[in-house]
């Protein structure tokens, strides 16, 4: 890729004039912005840094200080991050998180994309779940209802996506099928799910799903929420994949047909690899949305990151420092989502430059 020519270097004064004071309306806006910053930044700095209480400290120390009480986070971070998972076993979810970060790191490299990576993901997810559940190799068994915090949020997201993605490919293909019955069934499913809020699906999973199962069979709450998340994300992913499919020129289908490939051979070897590559930025965006949306399981009382934080600040001693709690988990969400959205933008420019050549 040819690098864009470097912009002409401006002196500091010239830069100021061009970017901040080019005409009177810009000058007014700049002064207004500066005024806002001057009013907002110093108090924010005083609160968050200068007058804040860092490290371990008593709630009374925090009460006396005028700034933020980061001691609350210091006191409660294990509860916020891991929920009610047994305290002594919390290295297991931590190890799981490390595994996940390593896998995500590997997957960011476009050259690694392929069947191998998918297999590695399968193995990693299995290992992760095994770590969380235990019950083998001397690990004590930890039931689903004790899972919580960041690992629960991530499991709901990643497992949800891992199962919803293959499902969504079938839905997307079905929606473009030439068989009217299949086309209508897929279309009805997608429109139905996309027309209702996720929270109604979560309610459906937690109140209606038990009724639909044979008498005596029951599934636990984490699994119910997971089912709702899978059903929900499959519909949205299907639309992203369909977008990718639509971008594939007709000639590709015809060429595959001319080579004597069957429908499924053509899809698997010719159409889908191209369509999914086109759809990946959209898929990453859905991933970001899903990661944020898993916080809704807090409404059906699953202790995800958000609810774990709310339980931490329910402690009467620390209740007044709720803003710190919100800032802490907002930062976690922000870092993950920001990283993913930047990555999706990077991919988009990569694909675009690939097409321009």
């Amino acid at each position, binding site marked *: 890729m040819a690098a864009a020519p470097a912009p002409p270097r401006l002196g500091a004064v010239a830069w100021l004039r061009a970017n901040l004071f080019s005409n009177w309306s810009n000058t007014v806006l700049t002064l207004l912005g500066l005024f806002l910053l001057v009013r907002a930044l110093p108090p924010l700095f005083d609160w968050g840094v200068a007058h804040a209480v860092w490290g371990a400290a008593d709630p009374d120390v925090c009460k006396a200080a005028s700034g933020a009480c980061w001691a609350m986070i210091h006191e409660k971070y294990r509860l916020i991050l891991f929920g009610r998972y047994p305290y002594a076993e919390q290295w297991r979810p931590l190890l799981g998180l490390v595994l996940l970060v390593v896998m995500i790191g590997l997957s960011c490299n476009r050259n690694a994309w392929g069947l191998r990576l998918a297999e590695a993901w399968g193995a990693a997810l299995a290992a992760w779940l095994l770590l969380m559940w235990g019950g083998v190799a001397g690990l004590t068994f930890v039931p689903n209802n004790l899972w919580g915090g960041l690992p629960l949020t991530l499991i709901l997201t990643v497992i949800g996506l891992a199962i919803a993605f293959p499902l969504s490919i079938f839905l997307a293909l079905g929606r473009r099928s030439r068989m009217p019955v299949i086309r209508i069934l897929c279309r009805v499913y997608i429109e139905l799910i996309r027309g209702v809020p996720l929270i109604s699906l979560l309610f459906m999973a937690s109140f209606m799903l038990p*009724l639909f199962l044979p008498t005596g069979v029951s599934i636990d709450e984490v699994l119910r929420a997971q089912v709702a998340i899978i059903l929900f994300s499959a519909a949205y992913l299907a639309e992203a994949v369909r977008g990718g499919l639509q971008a594939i020129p007709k000639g590709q289908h015809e060429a595959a047909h001319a080579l004597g490939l069957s429908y499924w051979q053509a899809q698997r070897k010719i159409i889908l690899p191209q369509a999914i590559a086109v759809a990946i930025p959209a898929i990453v965006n859905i991933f970001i949305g899903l990661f944020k949306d898993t916080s809704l399981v807090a409404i059906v009382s699953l202790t995800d990151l958000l609810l774990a934080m709310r339980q931490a600040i329910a402690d009467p001693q620390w209740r007044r420092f709720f803003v710190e709690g919100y800032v802490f988990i907002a930062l976690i*969400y922000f870092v993950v989502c920001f990283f993913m959205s930047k990555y999706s933008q990077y991919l988009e420019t990569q694909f675009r430059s690939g097409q321009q050549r």
Partner: protein
Amino acid sequence: MVSPTTLAPVVFWRNQRFRLALYQAVALLLVIGAGAYFVSNALANLDERSIRTGFGFLSREAGFRIGESIIPYDASNSYGRAYVVGVLNTLRVSLLGIVLATLIGVLVGMARLSSNWLVVRLASLYVETVRNVPLLLQLFFWYTVITGLLPSVRQATQLLPGVYLSKSGLMFPAPVPHPGHPYMAAVFVIGCGLAWGYRGRARRRQEATGQVPKLLLPSLGLILGPPLVVWLVSGAPTALDVPVFTRFTFRGGNSITPEFLSLLAGLVLYTAAFIAENVRGGIQAVPRGQSEAAAALGLRRTTALRLVILPQALRIVIPPTTSQYLNLMKNSSLAVAIGYPDLVSVANTSLNQSGQAIECISIMMGVYLTISLSISVVMNVYDRAIALVER
């Protein structure tokens, strides 16, 4: 070797039309079978737990109170009426939210394209922060801030004369009802119709003669003039019902609950960030040549924006913005988490009271589906109306 000229007649199970029909029949049977299985399970379970079925409960007495309502409602009213209250509350916050989110979103989107470095940075800071944090977290945050950090009713902050903000919400003056008000509303609607008609005539005249008739002032006159005349004729009533603090609480005026306020703030700020991105993307997608050509024709920057850039950008901006409107409406369901009595919250309460999960959740999903589908139908019609007509 099979010689190509002697093709054996295709056996019927290899016939493609037969196969397609077979696949579809199997798919349909599978779906119907699964449905029947679930229904029979549900019937058995309901029977075992002796839960009543059917929508008869809608006419029974609800027995729960609802915090705020547009129409009169109390605990002795029916479940059906409670649902209507819930739907109206959902629509109220969604409509107001859509209007405010559009205003802020367009402003921020333009700000991100400004030539002012500082304005661009501030706008991006806002967009990036708000978009990357879950909406539910933001709603909880606003709700805890409003109910936890704002002063109590006793020490309510006075924002403007007669407008107070406190833990218990926003209090503001309302005009005292006057017999002239309905007439003012009526002539306002008529005025809007007249202005629309005038706009059509002006456009036809412009196409016929090339002259650009004045549009803004006459339309404003048509819209605002008649209500003003009616107001003057009916004796210019200026009486305002101003909230006054009496012993424990405010009396008079209008008020907005903290739940509504935090839900509205959360939804508007969140959706505005997405709309801002749509606006920015739409304007950037208009080819550079268009603004250069407009400049070459001697149009001023603002005129070029209004007549050349925006009409083209709008075409790109509207579809994704519609889906943001739908998202806002669906996201208003998070109200249940902070106790605003929207549709989900009413459905949840009646589910817990009546035990009729299937009916309660079906009504809830049915209502959302109806609203979503009708908005998308309306937007598709609008989309087609402004689509590029090539000659």
